[in-house]
């Protein structure tokens, strides 16, 4: 047990927080609804952490990749009555494959070019979802998607979503503790050095981006079976951007950073007077965070505790 706490601290923190959070919102209808939606966003934010924080691909397609997973699961459930649980695997696999294909092209390029390519891909998929009436239902979207069998109350659904978040955090932390994770870190600091060490940088970065797309697909699958409705505007490029901003505010280089940023900003958002001010709030928060603490909230905390420890240690 102690070994687990020592070696996977982030997972343990996440599990404790998720259990208390989900337990606290049981019996509050609004709280349960928020817990599910924030959990889905946190999962997408986690995928941003993996793609931007670790693999260095500033992706503006994460929410749209989630939408692919959601659409796929909704379509097979509505057309052929396939159980959502059977559709889970394809809903994760399709975004993963697509992201891997894109990443093979963009990882050798400049970071800015990679960011633009994801933005262009996101726009293409969004337009396709709007206009491919026979499959995606066009602007109207797909209605009447079945909920997850066996998960009846929103409270139980919140537990499922946050369980998924914890699993994703565990996988993510596992990756970062492995040789592959250390290689990813090396690539971020010095690509030439990583290549000299025998790391196939484009392949590893592509794999990282593909895994992040898998997280996004999982988020989309959870989303569609909770809302039971899917339209092009539910998970669009705008959503990708707000999740991206939230992840950066939380601290994109840290495993828990994106989740903390999402939860904090989403809770603060409840205090806003109107839905439309959201962007102003996100954009402002991002600029302030970049100016004050470029590594996000967690980075700031990390630095201050280190400085504090160093000051205490140097005292005679």
């Amino acid at each position: 047990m102690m070994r687990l706490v020592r070696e996977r601290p982030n997972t343990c923190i996440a599990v404790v927080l998720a259990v208390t959070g989900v337990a606290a919102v049981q019996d509050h209808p609004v709280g349960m609804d928020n817990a599910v939606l924030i959990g889905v966003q946190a999962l997408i934010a986690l995928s941003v952490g993996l793609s931007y924080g670790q693999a260095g691909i500033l992706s503006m397609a994460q929410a749209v990749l989630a939408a692919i997973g959601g659409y796929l699961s909704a379509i097979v459930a509505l057309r052929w009555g396939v159980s959502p649980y059977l559709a889970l695997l394809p809903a994760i696999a399709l975004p993963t494959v697509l992201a891997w294909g894109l990443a093979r092209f963009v990882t050798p390029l400049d970071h800015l070019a990679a960011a633009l390519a994801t933005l262009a891909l996101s726009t293409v998929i969004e337009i396709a979802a709007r206009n491919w009436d026979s499959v995606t239902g066009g602007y109207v979207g797909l209605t009447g998607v079945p909920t997850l069998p066996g998960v009846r109350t929103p409270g139980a659904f919140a537990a499922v979503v946050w369980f998924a978040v914890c699993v994703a955090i565990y996988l993510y932390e596992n990756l970062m503790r492995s040789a592959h994770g250390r290689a990813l870190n090396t690539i971020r600091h010095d690509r030439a050095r990583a290549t000299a060490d025998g790391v196939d940088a484009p392949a590893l970065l592509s794999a990282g981006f593909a895994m992040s797309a898998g997280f996004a697909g999982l988020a989309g699958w959870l989303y569609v079976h909770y809302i039971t409705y899917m339209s092009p505007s539910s998970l669009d490029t705008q959503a990708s951007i707000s999740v991206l901003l939230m992840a950066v505010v939380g601290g994109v280089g840290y495993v828990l950073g994106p989740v903390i940023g999402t939860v904090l900003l989403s809770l603060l958002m409840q205090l806003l007077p109107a839905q439309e001010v959201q962007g102003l709030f996100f954009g402002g928060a991002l600029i302030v965070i970049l100016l004050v603490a470029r590594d996000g909230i967690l980075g700031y905390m990390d630095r201050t505790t280190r400085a504090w420890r160093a000051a205490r240690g140097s005292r005679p």
Partner: protein
Amino acid sequence: MEYVVRGLLSGAVYGLLALPMSLLFLTTGTIDFAVGSYALIAAAIAVTVGGGAGLAAGMGAALLAAALMALIFWLLKRRGNEDPITIALASFGLAVAIASLVLWTWGTKAFVLPSFSTFWDLGGIRVSPQGFINLGLSLAMVGALYFVLYRSDLGRMMRAAAVNPRGAELAGIAVTRVQCGAFMAGGAVAGLAGLLIVFSSGLDYTIPLPLTLAGFGAAIILGIKSPLRGFAGGAAMGIVEAVSAGYASSIVASLVPSLFVLAVLSMQFFFQKRFAGDRP
């Protein structure tokens, strides 16, 4: 033929938007994702104030927004944060904030002003004189920019700041000031583009991102290094868009800017010599 003329006229605006992209990339090596939102805020203010004063106020608003971006850039740089991707991210924050401000204040309504009701007959093709105003103004801007960049001291300073910031600094050029100037110039050009769009097709709060993408597509298709090529790229994109709208469908036409970007980037993939991030 009709589609080619129409595309050329509408592509002029893309060419105009490509200018701030290539100018900024030349001087600072980064992308300003907020360019589309300068156009939006200029349009919103111009329509609200109205008349000739509205046009001036719109330009002022775009300049103000660009000045804000320049200020953010300067603050980031002062804090030792010169990573191009961080600056691009900050410009994203500004773009989202401006779009949200416009949505909050004006709602989802479209900004459009009536232009000419008469049409010119050009060898059997009916075109609005507005198209020619767009084309003329865009060409004038490109010419002015070309002159400034390649025929004046300021332009030489800008190019020097881009090629070797440190060396330029040592040679007595105020590199940061030049770079902030590039952001402001980008705001002015984007504001002008926004005003032209108000008179031709109109725009609403969703436009910033597609506009930025279109401008960037136009800028990179023939190489981002020169503003002239950016304009030609914009014209080419307008023509392809108009032709595909005419012969295929409006869906294909709306895909054109994104497909341009993807195509160019994958071409870079096939023809490049070395990987980004390698040491030279």
